[in-house]
């Protein structure tokens, strides 16, 4: 059963102490280059106290506020993805030896890692990446090695950014399943909920107090406030309208005219999983390493096929990305590939808005298909 208690603000450092003494490194939000990012941090002082993010299409700004709340920001620039599906991952090392080649597997020593600050959208995305990397015929050992070391501390969102639409995807603003601890940050401290045996083992060792009725009411009101979002996808399963839109290239021209095909949306998307495999050798060619790097369907090479590129135009590239994310995922992984985090909107250099584009496509398909 889930156990909930109150942890005064000044005692959050005790959680860090406990994690450290249990052998965990702590990965948490901190401010860097004008954005909140996940980094390995040692103390609560590195948390972004009082920082609030303002997000809009193609825009991310931080503002320092007088309150000292650590988690009043909404979105980090990247989710959890780079910590598991690393942007650059050696896969195998080959060496020339007498009489042939020798192949060595790459094994990483991953420390126990507690991640603090994860939002509902981040954790839903983690479940999707788990599905892709671990639940197929060939689980990826590199993702698995990192995944096994994780302890997850989620935070319920009490406000939404203008780019958020997790309510419409069903992934927020509250944290769903799969965490060890969930925090609700109030002015005086945290409502801490233990959701796993490991979470309970941590909670009972913290200087907690019983929860008061006011804590529950206040956190409920704050979560309700976060549910007010400006953006919403038309529905969770958009296969029907998007498979119709897929068949009419003219519907994609207006967004393709703005899309730079830079792939930023895919890079910050917490569920995008594409990678390419490169081969690298040092100058003395003493070995050769296969390295996996993030790739996106916006690159020509992604769809290269003997002599030609299958998706050359921005129409084809953007259509691939959006129909895959919001429609094809249902057929591949039984749900949409979007968890409503809004990062693709914020970090698009020209501010293309997946929600706006999807609504437009659904509307235009309807008007073009009488009887639908």
């Amino acid at each position: 059963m889930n156990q909930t208690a109150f942890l005064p603000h000044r005692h959050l450092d005790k959680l860090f102490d406990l994690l450290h003494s249990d052998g965990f490194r702590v990965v948490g939000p901190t401010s860097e280059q004008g954005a909140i990012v996940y980094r390995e941090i040692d103390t609560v002082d590195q948390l972004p106290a009082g920082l609030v993010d303002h997000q809009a299409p193609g825009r991310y700004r931080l503002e320092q506020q007088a309150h000292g709340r650590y988690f009043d920001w909404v979105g980090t620039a990247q989710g959890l993805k780079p910590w598991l599906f690393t942007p650059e991952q050696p896969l195998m090392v080959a060496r020339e030896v007498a009489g042939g080649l020798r192949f060595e597997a790459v094994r990483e020593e991953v420390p126990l890692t507690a991640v603090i600050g994860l939002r509902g959208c981040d954790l839903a995305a983690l479940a999707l990446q788990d599905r892709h990397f671990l639940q197929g015929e060939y689980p990826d050992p590199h993702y698995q090695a990192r995944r096994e070391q994780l302890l997850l501390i989620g935070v319920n969102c009490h406000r939404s950014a203008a780019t958020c639409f997790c309510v419409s995807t069903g992934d927020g603003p509250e944290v769903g399943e799969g965490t060890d601890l969930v925090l609700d940050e109030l002015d005086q401290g945290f409502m801490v909920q233990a959701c796993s045996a490991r979470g309970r083992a941590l909670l009972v060792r913290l200087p907690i107090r019983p929860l008061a009725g006011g804590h529950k009411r206040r956190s409920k009101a704050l979560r309700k406030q976060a549910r007010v979002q400006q953006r919403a996808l038309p529905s969770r399963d958009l296969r029907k309208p998007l498979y119709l839109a897929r068949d009419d290239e003219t519907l994609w021209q207006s967004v393709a005219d703005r899309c730079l095909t830079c792939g930023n949306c895919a890079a910050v998307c917490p569920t995008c999983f594409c990678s390419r495999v490169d081969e690298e050798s040092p100058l003395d060619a003493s070995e050769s390493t296969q390295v996996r790097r993030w790739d996106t369907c916006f690159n020509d090479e992604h769809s290269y096929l003997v002599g030609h590129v299958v998706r050359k135009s921005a129409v084809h590239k953007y259509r691939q990305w959006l129909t895959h994310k919001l429609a094809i995922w249902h057929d591949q992984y039984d749900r949409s590939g979007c968890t409503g985090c809004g990062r693709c909107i914020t970090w698009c250099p020209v501010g293309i808005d997946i929600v706006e584009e999807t609504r437009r496509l659904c509307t235009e398909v309807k008007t073009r298909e009488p009887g639908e």
Partner: protein
Amino acid sequence: MNDPWLPQQAVVVDKVMETPDVATLSLQLVEPEAQQRFHFDCGQFNMLYLYGLGEVPISIMDYQHGCLQHTIRAVGRISRTLVALETGAPLGLRGPYGNSWPIEDARGRDLVFITAGLGCAPVIAAIRRIIAARTDYQRLVIMQGVKHREDLLWQEQYERWREVPDCQVLLAASEERQEQFPWSLGMVTTLIDKAQFDVNNCTVMMCGPEPMIRASMRGLEAVGVSLQNCFVSLERNMQCALGLCGHCQMGTPFICREGPIFRVADIKEWFLLEGY
């Protein structure tokens, strides 16, 4: 856990230059246990690894006496180097991957093969197995298209197949202008009208360039073949063969995972759309 990224050691034990840019490599797995363990179904592929260069997916032609046969055309950086390998050259091999031609389900039916260029390689193993169990099947039609007559690989093999009972071998050359027996002039699809098979009790297996597959789909439907009974081996930029890298998605399926062989009716909506 077995590391799915780790190749097995292999060595080139024989090479036959089929044309100036096509070679058939015989590869032997170095580890005796790996030789024992290796088993493939017709239509599957391996990832071949070259030191310092990387990997490419190549369909498996045959596996006998611990030796794998791969026929490779020199088209890119890695395939050019593969074709240039000499006997004794070491390489890495992962596989086999993918599904197989439906030759078990096709028992009792007429079998029709339509291939063009090097597209014949992925069906060779299937044709050999079918001929080895000839009485399990009805008529056999083998259609192969090339640009020039001298591009035809394994001419002797096609001639031998002509001698197989109830086996029709049809060849077409698209860039030739002079008639020459037994060749037809034009694309492989022009052969469909000459093929003798029961359109209501046949299984069609195809492999070749995508425009040729699309033309074959039209030609087959025109003579009354249901695309439910047609199968195609497809290709995309496969970089991992494990269903992880994402490059080989054609709409819903990952070609490396659900394919490379698909029932045409199942893949049609994606395959006919440019850009997927």
